[in-house]
């Protein structure tokens, strides 16, 4: 089963970040890198990325067959996706175990969402 571990940036996580010492920030980044390496070693990692600042995002829509892109309403947004790990584990329990090792979980919380699969029950 595939699971997505989502890491949000919000006022609480920003406050936690502000309160960290330089060493703690270094450790935070290093722990993320190590976690991704560990996931890869264990054969569970599908992909993981950290996302750039939402001020760099473009919002895309299609109207009357034409694509329009614009800068988003980022100023008003209090919470945004900051990064994710997509993993493939035998069960939710293992996925939760990996999520507990995401450094952010120590300061705020991270979310684990199952990915929809293509199985089907014959009703």
């Amino acid at each position, binding site marked *: *089963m*595939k699971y997505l571990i989502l890491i949000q940036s919000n006022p609480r996580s920003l406050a936690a970040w502000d309160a960290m010492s330089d060493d703690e920030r270094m450790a935070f980044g290093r722990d993320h890198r190590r976690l991704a390496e560990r996931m*890869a*070693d*264990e*054969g*569970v*990692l*599908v*992909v993981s990325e950290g996302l750039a600042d939402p001020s760099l995002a473009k919002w895309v829509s299609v109207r009357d067959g034409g694509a329009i892109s614009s800068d988003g309403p980022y100023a008003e947004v209090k919470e945004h996706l900051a990064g994710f790990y997509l993993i*493939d*584990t*035998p069960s939710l329990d*293992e996925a939760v175990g990996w999520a507990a090792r995401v450094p952010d979980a120590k300061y705020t919380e991270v979310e684990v969402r*199952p990915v*929809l*699969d*293509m*199985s*089907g*029950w*014959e*009703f």
Partner: protein
Amino acid sequence: MVEDLLRTSAPQVLAAVARRYGDFDAAEDAVQEALLAASQQWPAGGVPDNPVAWLIRVASRRLIEMVRNEQARRRREALPQDPVPCVRGDDELTLLLLCCHPALTGNAQVALTLRAVGGLTTAEIARALLIPEKTVGQRISRAKQRLRDAGARFVLPDDLESRLPGVRQTLYLIFNEGSTASSGSALHRVELSAEAIRLTRQLRQLRPADGEVAGLLALMLLTDARRPARTRADGALVPLAEQDRSLWDQAFIAEGVSLITDALQRYAVGPFQVQAAIAAVHDEAPSAAATDWPQILALYRLLEALAPGPMVTLNRIVALAEVDGPPAGLRALDDAGLDHYRVAAVRAHLLERSGAPAEAREEYRRAARLTLSLPERRYLETQVARLA
């Protein structure tokens, strides 16, 4: 075809080399290289008279080279080099048991079995499971390391019988991976359900008197027989009752029915045999309306006693509702007190059948939210729309 020949030869070659040199990990690497060499040389230069012997020779040479290189560093004594290993009858079973070792997770068992016994490349496994090749590679090397740590050796275990349920479960997991990972987009994707059937046929040859292996093979055939009718061209799920039965694979049905009929007469009954028997009753019904529901209900009761689980109970309740009517089904559903996401889907179905469309609609909506399957969600949403 060279590719098929390589895949069917792979487990025999690996087993022979692993048994001779006692190092499964190194043997697996060496056999991969021998298979690669063959896939490059045979199409142009021709297939050797005895392909398995050729592969064993090349893999053994490669393994000895690898060990020597390591030993040159470590200055240890050489491994025995003669005689050249040969294929032995119980090799493939030993190999299968090793790949399904209880020290490994289900995911690891699936990957290792597909490569070592199925003869698939890491890239093929990655495409079949829809995960990166590197992840599969790591999963396999981790699995081999874990086998080493667990002290697993290439010999038939003493507790052979108690290990077989694990093997059957892994093969069934591979079969089901075929339906969970199927995206239908990749053209050269290995069909995992077909691969699982091939491997289970092999296991059946090795254990012809195992009723549950026969039951598992029958269950796979009887389920896979319905595959052409299970999804529409757009990927939408077609419920059993609405499937075009003329699309079902009659050869698979005939083989599955004959297998399960024979197994039930000869061996002690087990969960795979009962599930196969249920699938056979569905497959033999000329139409949904002509389904022998009392027999299906009896079989689900038996299955619930042998191998209880929420899905078994739900299916038993569906069958009960067909026999005794939707109100009886709804009562049974309440009594069962199940905590499972498919309870809502079953309740919706039964509410609709008992003439309560508004309540049914709400339950379908709930079921659509709770499912983990994309085709199922689409199906449930169409039910919501239909009852609007």
